[in-house]
């Protein structure tokens, strides 16, 4: 079931989508659940970058990781998969989400040039990177 991961597509000429984000369920009284879908499998560097927003736990049997900020949210996913989710239950959910957005943006910025697209609420909708110009092969140059 990779419904969200399948949604990864390059919708802007010259740009390659690295991550997409959207809401799975939104509820004023209970958790609001947000997904991030990635073009590449989740690696440990990405998980470690999230550890700046909470306590990180990794289960080495299943690959499940969880980043918890108690009474605010937890982020979970599986190493090697392409999706992570945040379950937020604090009243100021948007500020919690922005913290995680920021970490992900910083993570991808550290790897190269990226551009972001945001939702009306200011939360992250997409991270993309410019596609490098392909090398021109000069046939018969030698």
């Amino acid at each position, binding site marked *: *079931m*990779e419904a969200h991961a399948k949604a990864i597509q390059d919708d802007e000429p010259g740009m390659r989508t690295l991550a997409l984000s959207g809401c799975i*369920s939104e*509820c004023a*009284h*209970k*958790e609001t*659940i947000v997904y991030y879908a990635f073009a590449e*499998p989740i*690696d*440990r560097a990405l*998980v*470690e970058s999230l*550890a*700046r927003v*909470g*306590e*990180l*736990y*990794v*289960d*080495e*049997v*299943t*690959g*499940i990781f*969880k980043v*918890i900020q*108690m*009474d605010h*949210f*937890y982020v*979970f*996913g*599986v*190493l*090697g*998969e392409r*999706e992570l*989710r945040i*379950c937020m*239950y604090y009243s100021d959910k948007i500020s919690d989400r922005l913290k995680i957005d920021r970490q992900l943006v910083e993570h991808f910025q550290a790897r190269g040039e990226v551009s972001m697209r945001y939702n009306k609420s200011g939360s992250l909708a997409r991270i993309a990177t410019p596609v490098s110009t392909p090398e021109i092969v000069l046939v018969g140059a030698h």
Partner: protein
Amino acid sequence: MAIPERSSGTRHPYLSRQDFPGSCYFDNGAATPMSAAAMEALTQACRLAWANPSSLHGTGREAREKVLEVEQLLRAELGAEHARIAFTGSGTEANNMAVLGYWSANGRPGERVIISRFEHPAILECIDVLRQQGAEVMMADIRRDGVVDLEQLESLLNEHARLVSVMAVNNELGTIQPIGRIGRMCRERRIAFHTDAVQAVGKIRLSMADSCIDLLSLTAHKFHGPRGVGALVIRPDLLINPIAYGGASDTLLRPGTQNVPGITALGAAVRFFREQREVMERTRRELDIYLLEGLSCIPGFHLNTGGAERVHGVFNVRFDGVDADSLIQHLDYFGVHCSRGSACSAASPKLSATLTAMGLTEKEIQESFRISMGFFNAQHEIDWLLGLLPPLVSCLRAMPDKSTHVGKLMSAPVCS
């Protein structure tokens, strides 16, 4: 501190969605997928039986014929010869109509209505309205195994009792209620008996005549029919008032143009389970045994209803020390779709009224969720669920959940 990378070859060595690329739908208590027969009936009726069935001309009469056919089918299925049938837009509407419509036509201030504590909100939320209209509403208790306490219920049936409402199968638990005994207790005392059979129709055999049921609610989307079509089946000599008003409310009970394609598809869904009943019952029973055997091997597993009789395939379960919301999220991540209990209250922060009435602790309720299988589920889906649960349960039990900073760490916090 860096997390060491595992050498993984071509694919990662952990739990992986790639091992089961589809999805497993185990939330049939919320809604079932439509059968091909119901879909075909729906589209055909949209093409051929689209007229207003109240119209007196030929096209209208053709539509009316379709509705009458389904009425006959429901009477035959439900052991309800000559019953009046009011098609509604949902089971909720049918429940409202049963309780409020019956009270409006028959109740007098000071008279009593008895409702079980674990009724659907479609009944429970009528209580305030009944009380405003002068009814004395009493609650029937639930035993620890999720069955109505008959002795206590009987003690409430005094000479002022007018109506009893107890569901046939509980929506969160799947437990089958002793509606035959309740019906007979009510009939002996000339008290009307309503049963919300939304979770029962298509799963257990029902006879309104044998069980002394005066009013019965159902909805099509719980038995592979379309969404948005329900019905209230009413004993022929029972007086009931409409709860909405408009054209033809005197004859139809529910005003408004009838949803003929939806009603026709409901009929197709009823025919489908009547034709397939034995295969369905056998399939559900086999899947039930298979899943329960697998679940029972997982440490800390509890079936909340113990040994009470359930409809096959519906389980209200918990695993010690595992928050159900978190487990449901992780199962969903791996394509397995379950829910806390009632879809109608999934977004509510309140504890389940059903599990509270059974006497579960707050912690036990937070750990509880429902797995509801249907006819279209297959053994390989159960295998995927049973493969996921042991590692997930073990992992989530060891990690702190959203509200308690306890739990033994499987690997120490790597960064913070």
